């Protein structure tokens, strides 16, 4: 319980830090999702689960191997990334200057974050929305009450 509360407070503080860094769009998201909705969902989860873990049987080796292999592949992928905060990184040289110069005349939207997210990178945003959609469908499938079939009881 205390951990959930602390993580909510932490999110709210992060939102303030982002606000101080002039990233208002991100600060909004952090405050609403991190401090608001995920705290509620964590509390809901806490009220649904007990304090003891169920005895589990079966192998745990295969999941461990999968997780370690995925993690190793991800770490390997970060090795040739540019140094953190490098001004010569491709992200600062490639398309960002063009967006900053042409966005006011091409898209004409004062908030450049919106013009990049919605117009220039519209495909990515469509992908993000699809991810959220898929996440919603996944939660529905996992938590859906199973229909009680002709008297074999509620299984959940």
């Amino acid at each position, binding site marked *: 319980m205390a951990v959930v509360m602390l993580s909510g407070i932490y999110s709210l503080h992060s939102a303030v830090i982002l606000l101080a860094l002039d990233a*208002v*769009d991100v600060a*909004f*998201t952090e405050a*609403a*999702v991190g401090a*608001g*909705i995920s705290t*509620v*969902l964590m509390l*809901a*989860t806490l*009220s*649904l*689960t*007990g304090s003891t873990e169920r005895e589990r049987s079966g192998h745990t080796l295969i999941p461990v191997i999968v997780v370690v292999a995925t993690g190793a592949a991800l770490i390997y992928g970060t090795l040739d990334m540019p140094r953190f905060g490098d001004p010569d990184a491709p992200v600062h040289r490639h398309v960002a200057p063009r967006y900053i110069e042409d966005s006011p*005349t*091409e*898209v*004409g*939207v*004062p*908030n450049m*974050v*919106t*013009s990049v*997210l*919605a*117009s220039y990178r*519209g*495909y990515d*945003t*469509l992908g*993000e*929305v*699809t991810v*959220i*959609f898929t*996440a*919603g*469908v996944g*939660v*529905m499938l996992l*938590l*859906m*009450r199973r229909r009680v079939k002709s008297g074999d009881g509620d299984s*959940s």
Partner: protein
Amino acid sequence: MIHYVVLRVVAKLLIPFILVFALYVQFHGDFGPGGGFQAGVIFAAAFILYGLIFGLEAAQRVAPPEVVRVLVAAGVLLFAGVGVATLLLGGNYLNYSVLSADPVHGQHLGILLIELGVGITVAAVMITIFFYFAGRTRS
């Protein structure tokens, strides 16, 4: 929590402002900070607050789960539909400049529509997740 008067009164006072602020963030996103995602989350937060204070059943009367479930898909469809519309009008997928005679105006229209799609899907998904979490009893 139905019996706590302070919580009920404060929630009733806050919810209209949360909803209006969500709509402001949604439709003012091209000019000020914000956009569809933030607006959707804030909009959903109002419903979740209502559900926390007045109970799940009251919240589900306001936002029927069947309707919310349809909205989850409707937002994505609106977004993708804008892309198809730009294809039919002779442009690239999601190139909003062809939506209107004036390219800049077309961009505005396109961004407004797709942000609306994002907002609808995000709000509906958040509300649905809350409903499913809150509606599940301990096994």
